[in-house]
């Protein structure tokens, strides 16, 4: 009985709405980021003792030059309505003196949890301009801090001043139709009604790109993007 109910719900989500999926790729040679120097804080460098140092996450490519940390969202075509806010918080950890993940999406008014898993001081300098910016000191006496963003803002830069290589981005969306690509470059935005949508992809240095796509009821369509180094 329960299983039936579950299946019904499951089916209603997966089959009763359209979906846009795709892959974001890097077009061109694949450069490798330099390993980061973390000697200034032994707690940071100790996190990589024996292994390879972390690298900056400005450009993270997977097999076949797929791009990670691309924020994808529907930028046009959604009905004008208020979407329910997820009860689960979005989360950004500070671990090994890196932000994890490097790019996070969150809905307006959804809880956002900053975590410090490192045994050192981090400060979360949230450089919001639309929302209220804040700068939170997180010494080891403070492992978590729950925050909220009350307005749509794409994107907010987050910086740690103590460890200047630490930088990340938060996308605050007024609707739930967004995703962040993993190393495989893949994204999926589901639960869409039939319609014509504009999909926007964002990269921290390469800016945004958009494409339009029309999906029918319950239709799944594929929409790929590619970034390359712009000529000057």
């Amino acid at each position, binding site marked *: 009985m329960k299983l039936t109910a579950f299946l019904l719900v499951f089916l209603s989500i997966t089959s009763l709405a359209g979906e846009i999926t795709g892959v974001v790729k890097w077009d061109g040679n694949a*450069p490798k980021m330099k390993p980061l120097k973390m000697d200034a*804080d032994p707690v940071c460098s100790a996190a990589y003792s024996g292994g390879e140092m972390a690298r900056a996450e400005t450009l993270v490519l997977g097999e076949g030059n797929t791009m990670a940390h691309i924020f994808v969202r529907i930028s046009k075509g959604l009905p004008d309505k208020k979407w329910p806010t997820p009860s689960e918080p979005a989360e950004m950890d500070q671990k090994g003196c890196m932000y994890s993940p490097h790019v996070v999406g969150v809905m307006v008014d959804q809880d956002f949890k900053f975590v410090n898993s490192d045994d050192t001081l981090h400060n979360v300098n949230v450089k919001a301009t639309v929302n*209220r910016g804040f*700068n939170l000191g997180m*010494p080891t006496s*403070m492992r978590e801090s729950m925050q909220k963003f009350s307005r749509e803002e794409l994107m907010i830069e987050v910086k740690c001043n103590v460890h200047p290589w630490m930088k990340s981005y938060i996308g605050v969306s007024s609707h739930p139709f967004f995703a962040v690509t993993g190393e495989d470059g893949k994204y999926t935005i589901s639960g869409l009604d039939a319609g014509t949508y504009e999909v926007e992809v964002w990269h921290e240095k390469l800016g945004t790109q958009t494409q339009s796509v029309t999906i029918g009821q319950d239709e799944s369509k594929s929409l790929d993007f590619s970034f390359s180094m712009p000529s000057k």
Partner: protein
Amino acid sequence: MSAILFFFMLQSDLGATTYDKYCAQCHGEQGDGQGIATEFVMPRPRNFTTGVFKFRSTQSGQLPLESDLEKVVREGIRGTSMPSFAQLGESEIKAVVAHIQGYYQAVIDRDKEEGFYPPKVAEMGNPPKVTDALITHGREVYLQSGCGDCHGYEGRADGPSSLTLKDDYDESILPANLNRGWEFRAGHELTDIFRAFTTGLSGTPMASFADAIPADDRWALASYVQSLSVGEEPTASAQVSASIVDQLPESMDDPLWDSAPEAYFPLTGQMMWAPVNHQPGVRSVTVKALHDQSSVALLVSWDDPSFSVAGAEAPGGADEEDDWGFETEEEDDFGDFFDEEPAAQVDADQFAIQFPSGFPAPNERPYIVMGDGSNPVNLWRWVQDGSLASQQAPAEAQSGHANLWTEYKGNVSLSSELAKGRNQISALSDGTPLKGSVHYLNGRYHLMVTRTLLTDSEDEVQLEVGKFLPILFWAWDGHRNEKEAMGNLSAWFFLRLEQPVDRSVYVKTAGAAFLTAILLLWAIRAARDSSRQEPSEVVESAT
């Protein structure tokens, strides 16, 4: 006509006219911090339109109270270009603050909508009684909470992250040197210090620790920070006087130095010749001196948050914004886009003591910027050459804070130079060797140098006992690329080598005292005699 103008004045907004008259030059006609003087002002004038303010009594992320802004207008912000406007009446100050709020009305509206306006004041509680135990506890909080990552082990702004810090305008910004309380922007009172790390200084790397550190610990921390220095800058000494010792100290650790009086001399950036130094990296020196009638020893100390050897890569100096940080560059594809600037290189830290050449007269002081052709100066210059040996952190700093400890030591030699102006400096080949030693410890340099009082070179200063010898100090912070005449210098002060006390003085003094006593006794006796005779005289005259 003037009546119409007067009427117009009355009608116009008092805040706007006050703003245009006193504020717009730096903060811009639109309140965006882009006034005509902006490019010359560091730290940059506030851009009011963002609603981001450093000095607030309110919680992190919230707007300031009107009274916070009024306080800044009334008192100014020390150590910045923001002067006090106390000469304005209270009504004008209130009006101009109301006007300034208009520039960030959108931010006020947003916060109103979200229930954050009026802003919430950060909870302060009552300041405790400061005790030694509280200060000791405060130091623990300081080290455990990571304050030293930026402010350094002893608070001299020399922490491992210090030189990489940038503010919201992407300008380099140094943490406060906690040993210079008179430079604290937000004030040096216990409550000022507590408030600074409770609210955070928005727009700067200084975060809010209100949620992270309990209030009791924050008061302890404030007590510790306050205990490191005083709130008012020490008064400049007129001279440094060297007492006589039988034998000069061998090292700067010699206890002989403890009893030597310390002189304080402020330094300022060199502003007479381009390139001028608007942002002095070294702002004062303390000096002690001793002599043994044949040689003099000087011990000079100054704060410098960066230990800089020429040619080293500047931490945080490279423009990270435009640098992708690729390990392998494919020139064809990426070369143009990078526009990569080479990482900034630092220059060597330097220090020099300047004297007039030859036998100085106290009233003849050469031109302060390294003399001129007719009145040359003798410079005793030390240049950081990387030869000092790095020291290991002591046990007390080993447990988790060794990375905050920066210590270098070694013997150095100083060059004796003849300068006839900033562009005519030559090392003296017949110069007298200047033996010295340097100790750099957690953001502070100590330099000891000894030299014979008299030398064979007429280009060198000849130091005569008992004279007022003009002396001036130069310091260069290599990390700020200070070099040549773009350094920091003091005014001319005096070095005075105390004269030996003449032993005959004791005999003469005793003799004089004896004579005085005799004379006194004689005088008393004479007075008594005459007073005894007086009555009879009176009687005589009456009869």
